[in-house]
């Protein structure tokens, strides 16, 4: 997908575990894993808002636009 979720990087920078984030945001571990692994099709504004609030970051820090061919090259 052209939009990459950089949640793992932000979590690492904040030294926060995914479990802790789940508790704080109120999203299930399964759903956050879907988001973290890039399998999500869409993100609700309410979820994004909660993530930004708990991680003290901007939406742009969590999402990154990647060119399709760039993504393919990275995968290879």
């Amino acid at each position, binding site marked *: 997908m052209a939009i990459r979720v950089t949640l793992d990087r932000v979590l690492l920078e904040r030294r926060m575990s995914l479990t802790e984030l789940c508790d704080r945001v109120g*999203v299930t571990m399964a759903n956050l894993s*879907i988001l973290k692994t890039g*399998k*999500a099709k869409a*993100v*609700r504004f309410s979820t994004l808002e909660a993530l930004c609030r708990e991680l003290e970051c901007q939406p742009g820090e969590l999402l990154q636009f990647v060119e399709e061919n760039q993504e393919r090259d990275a995968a290879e």
Partner: protein
Amino acid sequence: MKALGKNSLATFLNTILVLVSWFLWAALAVLFLFGLPALVIDSFHDLSWVAKAPPPALVWPFSIMFAIFVLATQVVISRLRKIFATLIAGDPFVPENATHLRTIWMILVGFEALNMAFSSGTLLAQRVFGEMFAGLRGEFHMNWSLWLAVAVLVVLAEIFNEGAKMRQEQKLTI
């Protein structure tokens, strides 16, 4: 009566389908176990005890048509039961239901095409061979209600397909 879940309309219709399925298997078994062997034995050639019995020359084609009808109906019933199972479970928007509906309308189209071909063939045979096929209903007609049902099923299949896609997207919306 509720439409989804246990003890719903879907459960009731599912039970009716099971009964229809058993009845059709029984009818097919009776035909092949008793009806057709009777033809083989000379002394039973007289089929006048059967109401509107077809001419002996057409018994085999009729039997084959009936067997095809039973098998096609069994497939349709089996697919319908799978759809009802999802309705009973309360989750009908699964991709498999679109496939089941597509299969059902394709079977209906196939069977109706075969039926039309058979009717036309009978009509032709009546014209060519005359009395041998007298008494048979050899007429070509369009079953409009069936074609309407096919159209509804085509639309329903596509609705289920799109519904399943939307549901999948909804599932992956965090």
